[in-house]
């Protein structure tokens, strides 16, 4: 079993001082990885990770995740290789095929078909692998939900990320996969890995450390109305309850799904801290 790792995906853009403070806070709270998203209206990923490295000592730096369709593979590889050098090898590269159609349209980038977007991801990964031949490549995180993506991830990635979302997730609405669907996807990854050891990352969509678990789950239910409160209470991507209970839940999730690396969104940065504290070194 792999040791736990915790990441936070930051996305709120702001001043240098705000960004530096947030990155330091993530490190101080015990996170292992600080991640940046790749969306319009959010932070510029590569400059943001460079500054994150300057502001911190230890924490690893992750693109969580780059939209392959937004980048020329050769130019992106140059940028990431330099970032890795400048940060003393602290970079972990996360890439997906892109999923927010409105952003493609706003940027004038062809949305194309799922196959076309997947092809762009393959092009980026191929170029990264080529460029790093003969020298250590930063760890690669790939993932998603579909068979094709997860099969590709199993063949190429050091870390495989499950989004924990359900098909048909509308923009701005959280469509979470239920427990059975999530377990099925984790099982699929295990199968396509065929015995190869890889880290499994799970995106955590909701965190409330509270003595009133019921009220927290009701809040989650308002955000994810298609899943019943009981279902949400059992779901690995929803962490609601006391710090002790959530700690137990994560230990169980690692046991059952094999996921040992959990990433929360910026809003939940401070919420998860007491749990990280309890799981240190485990």
């Amino acid at each position, binding site marked *: 079993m792999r040791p736990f790792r915790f990441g936070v995906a930051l996305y709120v853009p702001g*001043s240098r001082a705000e960004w530096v403070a947030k990155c330091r806070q993530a490190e101080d709270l015990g996170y292992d990885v600080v991640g940046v998203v790749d969306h319009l209206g959010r932070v*510029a990923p590569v*400059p*943001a990770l460079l500054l994150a490295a300057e502001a911190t000592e230890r924490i690893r730096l992750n693109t969580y995740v780059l939209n392959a369709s937004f980048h020329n593979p050769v130019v992106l590889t140059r940028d990431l290789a*330099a970032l890795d050098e400048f940060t003393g090898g602290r970079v972990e590269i996360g890439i997906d095929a892109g999923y927010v159609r409105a952003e493609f349209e706003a940027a004038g980038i062809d949305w194309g078909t799922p196959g076309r977007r997947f092809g762009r991801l393959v092009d980026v990964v191929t170029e990264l692998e080529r460029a790093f031949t003969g020298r250590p490549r930063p760890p690669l995180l790939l993932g998603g939900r579909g068979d094709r993506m997860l099969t590709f991830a199993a063949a190429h990635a050091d870390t495989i990320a499950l989004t924990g979302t359900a098909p048909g997730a509308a923009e701005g609405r959280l469509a979470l996969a239920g427990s059975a669907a999530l377990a099925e996807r984790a099982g699929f990854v295990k199968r396509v890995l065929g015995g190869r050891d890889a880290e499994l990352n799970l995106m955590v969509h909701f965190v409330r450390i509270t003595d009133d678990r019921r009220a927290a789950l009701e809040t989650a239910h308002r955000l994810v109305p298609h899943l019943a409160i009981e279902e949400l209470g059992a779901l690995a991507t929803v962490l609601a309850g006391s710090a002790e209970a959530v700690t137990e839940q994560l230990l169980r999730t690692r046991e059952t799904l094999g996921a040992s690396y959990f990433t929360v969104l910026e809003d939940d940065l401070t919420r998860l801290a007491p749990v990280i504290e309890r799981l240190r070194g485990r």
Partner: protein
Amino acid sequence: MTGEFRFGVNMVVPDSRAAWVEKCRKVEDLGYDVLSAADHLGMAPPFPALVLAGEVTSRVKLNTFVLNAPFYNPTLLARDVTGTDQFTEGRLELGLGAGYVKEEFEAAGMPFPSARERVDHLERTIAELKRRYADPEHKPAPVRPGGPPLLLAGRGDRILTLAAEHADIIGFTGTAKTPDGGALVPASAEDIEERVGFVRSKLGGRGAEFNLLCHFVHITDDRAAALEELAKLTKGVLSADQLAEVPTALIGSPAEVAEQLHAHRERFGLTYYTVLEQNMEQFAPVLEALR
């Protein structure tokens, strides 16, 4: 500070953090006003390099010199520009060019667009940047309402017309007209004067700073010999007498070069020079002489 002039150093960004940090500090310590990062494949990328430069210096402006615009989607570029502007607390100066190194396009798996297409893309890029800067919803927000100062560099009529219309700083290449995608050769003083005159006619009275990339620096007590040497080095494209007149070759003692700079300001309106990294130490006494 050197009063009426500004001086920048155009840097090739190496792989190692330590080497880059050391060079950036040296630029500031030597008294330069601007630290510029070039944009080529095989070098580190400008934006993170400038963020790092900003972290290890306190005063110098941070400039892309110049971005190869066709490598960038304009909308995504706007995010990188304003993000870097925020992270460097308003010290960014954005330099853009239409792109000229054919081999790099091939290496990036992109067709080498025609000169017309490259300038078209640059025009779209400028329009998109201005639109994003002006949009109150755009995030990261630019530090100043109109965005960071814009430098446009090139030599052709269309790009210089664009520059006259949009740029705060107009970058003259000081190179002669050559076949597209070919090697660069220095222009004569008359050629540069003609380009400057063209821009002035297009500016129609609007103020803009005139920048020049200085290709040759030789600080020496024997100016005549150094000019002869350079004439040979540049394979006689320009004679020693012609080289004596061009602002792209700053040759002589610090006092002589300072004198040339004043003369060039009169003739060409140039007040902002960018020297190549390998010349930064050699050129530094000129900054002293101008103080």
